[in-house]
C-alpha cells in the first residue's frame, strides 16, 4: 500500500503535537510518576532498627501491618467522612451551580469569580479561621448560646472536619457542575415542558442526566482529596479523629516506619484509581 500525501501530513502533524506536549509529559514523569514509583519501591523495603528504610531484603511487612484494626478503623472513618463531604458538597453545590448557569453572562462571570475568591488566600490560614469560628469563644458559640444550646462543642470533632472539608472543596464541586449545566441546550428543557413534564420531572429526566459528567467530575475532585486530607483534619479534628492522611504522616515521621507509610499510600492510590475508573464508567453509561 502506498502512503498518500494526506497520511504523511497527518503523521507530521502528530509528530508536532507530540513535540508540543513533551515538556508537560516530562514534568508529569519527573514530579508525579517518579515519586509514585519511589513510594512503591519503599513499600517493599526493610525497616532497620534505627528506623531507616533499607532497600534490600524486599518483603511485604509494610502491607501486613495494614490488616490491623487500628488502620482499618482509620480507613473506614476516612472513607465515611470523605463520602459525607462529597455528598454534602453535591447537595449544596447543585442548586447553586444551576442558579449560576441560568443567569446572564455578566452575572455568571461575577459568580464564577466569587466562587474562586477563597483560593486567593492561604489554605492553612482559612482552616485556622474555621478554628476560630467553631471554637468555644467564636461566633458559632455566640449563635448556639443565643438560641439556648450552650457553647459550641464542634471544634475537634468529625463534624468540624466535615465542615472544613466541605468549605475547602466546595468550589471543586461547583465549577464542573456549573460547566456541565451551562452546556445543556435550553431548548431541551422547553421540549420537556412542552411534553407535559413538570418542573421536577424535567429536572429528574432531563437536567440531572445531562449534567452527570459534572456530577462525576465534581464528586471525584472532592472525594479524592477529602480521603487523603491532612491539613483540615489536623487543624479542626483534634487527636481523636485521626484520618488516613495524618496516619501516613505519622508512619513516616513519628513512627519512622517508611515501608508501612509507603504501603498504605500505595493502597490508597490503587483504591482511588479503581474507584475513579469505575465511577467514570458508570457515569459515562448513564449519559
Amino acid at each position, binding site marked *: 500500500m502506498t502512503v498518500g500525501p494526506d497520511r504523511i501530513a497527518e503523521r507530521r502533524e502528530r509528530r508536532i503535537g507530540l513535540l508540543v506536549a513533551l515538556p508537560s509529559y516530562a514534568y508529569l514523569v519527573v514530579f508525579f510518576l517518579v515519586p509514585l514509583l519511589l513510594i512503591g519501591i519503599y513499600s517493599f523495603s526493610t525497616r532497620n532498627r534505627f528506623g531507616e528504610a533499607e532497600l534490600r531484603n524486599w518483603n511485604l511487612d509494610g502491607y501486613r501491618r495494614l490488616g490491623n484494626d487500628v488502620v482499618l478503623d482509620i480507613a473506614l472513618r476516612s472513607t465515611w467522612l470523605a463520602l459525607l463531604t462529597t455528598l454534602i458538597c453535591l447537595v449544596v453545590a447543585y442548586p447553586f451551580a444551576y442558579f449560576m448557569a441560568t443567569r446572564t453572562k455578566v452575572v455568571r462571570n461575577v459568580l464564577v469569580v466569587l466562587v474562586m475568591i477563597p483560593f486567593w488566600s492561604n489554605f492553612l490560614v482559612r482552616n485556622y479561621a474555621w478554628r476560630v469560628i467553631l471554637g468555644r469563644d467564636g461566633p458559632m458559640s455566640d449563635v448556639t448560646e443565643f438560641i439556648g444550646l450552650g457553647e459550641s462543642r464542634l471544634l475537634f470533632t468529625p463534624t468540624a472536619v466535615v465542615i472544613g472539608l466541605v468549605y475547602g472543596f466546595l468550589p471543586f464541586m461547583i465549577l464542573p457542575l456549573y460547566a456541565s449545566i451551562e452546556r445543556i*441546550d435550553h*431548548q*431541551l428543557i*422547553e*421540549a*420537556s*415542558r*412542552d*411534553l*407535559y*413534564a*413538570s418542573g421536577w*420531572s424535567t429536572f429528574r*429526566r*432531563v437536567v440531572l*442526566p*445531562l449534567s452527570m459528567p459534572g456530577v462525576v467530575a465534581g464528586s471525584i475532585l472532592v472525594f479524592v482529596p477529602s480521603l487523603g486530607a491532612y491539613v483540615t483534619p489536623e487543624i479542626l479534628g483534634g487527636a481523636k479523629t485521626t484520618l488516613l492522611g495524618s496516619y501516613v504522616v505519622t508512619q513516616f515521621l513519628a513512627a519512622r516506619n517508611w515501608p508501612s507509610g509507603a504501603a498504605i499510600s500505595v493502597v490508597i492510590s490503587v483504591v482511588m484509581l479503581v474507584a475513579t475508573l469505575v465511577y467514570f464508567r458508570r457515569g459515562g453509561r*448513564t*449519559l
Partner: protein
Amino acid sequence: MWQSRRVSSGGQVSVAFRGVSKTFTTRGDTVVAVDGIDLDIGEGEFFSMLGPSGCGKTTMLRMVAGLDHPTGGSIEIFGAPVADVPAHRRPVNTVFQHYALFPHMDVTDNVGFGLRMQKVGVIERRRRVGEALELVRLDGLSGRRPAELSGGQQQRVALARALVNRPRVLLLDEPLGALDQKLRVEMQQELTGLQRELGITFVFVTHDQAEALTMSDRIAVMRDGRILQLGTADDVYERPTDRFVADFIGDINTIDGVVADASTIALATGERIAGDVAGRAPGTEVSVAIRPERLRLAPVSPDSADGSAPHPHPGTPVGRSLRGRVDSTAYLGNASVVRVCVDWVELTVRVPASAPIPEAGETVDVSWEQEALLVLEPQTSTVVDTADVGTRMRP
C-alpha cells in the same frame, strides 16, 4: 398550483389571539416582538406564519406553547384562555427548530416521553410509540440515540414525539430549516399528507415563502410583530395588498409612479400605463408590481427600434407594455430569466422553456395582461384589519 386545497372542517376556532402583544426588555431597550395581533386559526387548518427573522412569528408560536407569555392581550385554545395554564398542561405540542431531541435517550424513550409524563401505562405507551414511529416511517430505528440518526431521521423523531400525544394543535417552528433541499421537499409533502390524515391543526412557522405557499391553507405574512396580510397562498401571491408582501413572496418587479387619472399611472421612468386607480386622487404616489412570469416579451424590428418616438409596435396593447433593451439572460432549465432595462428600471421576465429567448442588446416590448398588474402603496406598509379577516376564514 396556488389553489386552496380544501375547505376547513367545522369552522371551529382552535387558537385565537386577542390583541396579543409581547415586548422584551434587554439592557434597558424595549423590543416589541408582537404588536397587538388579533387572529383566529381554524380547527384542522394548516396555518403558516411567514416572515423574515425577527418578525415575531416564533414568539407567536412560543406563546401558544406557553414558553413565552404575552405582555398584552390573551390567547385562547379551543375557547379557553390559557394565560394561567403552564406549558406542560396545554393541549399543544411543539416540533422545535433544531428538534431538541433528548440526547441521553433512545428513539423509543424520546417519543414515549410525553406519554410517560402523562402517566400512560407501559403497554399502551409501547403500542402508541410503535404507531407513531410507523407513521413517520421510522420503525426499526427505535433503539438508536439521536446522535446516531441523520438530520431527516431526527426530524421525524421530533415529529413522532409530538404527534404521539395526539395534540389538538401541533406547533412547528421552522422544522425543515436544517434539512437539505431534496429532503425538505419530501418532508413538505409528508407533513401536508400527515396533517390531512390526522386532521389536527398545524401552526407552521417559516421564513421560506415557497414552503408556506405549497403547504398552507392560510398564510399570515408578518413583519415587525404585525400581520401584513392574511389569506390563502393564492391571495398572498396573486393579490398582495402590500409592497413588502409582494416582495417577500416570490420575485416581483416594482416601479414607482403617480396617479395621472382614474385609469392611468405615470411611471417614474416617464411612460404612462393603464391601471385601475379609481379610488386614488391624481398625484398620489403608488407602486406598480408585476410577477416575472406574468410578463411577455415581443421582439421589435430594428427600424422601429431606431425611432426614438415610443410609438407602439403593431400587436402590443396600448398602456400595457414597455419598450426596453435586453440586458442579460439566464437559463434555468425549465425556464429562462431575461433582464430587460426600461430606462433605468430593470424588469425581470420569466420566459417558459418553449418560448424563444432574445439576445442581450436586443430591443423588446414587455407586455402584460391587465389583471396581472398590481397597484400598491409605495414603500410604507399597510396593516390589514386582521380581526375582520379572521371572521371570514375561508374564501
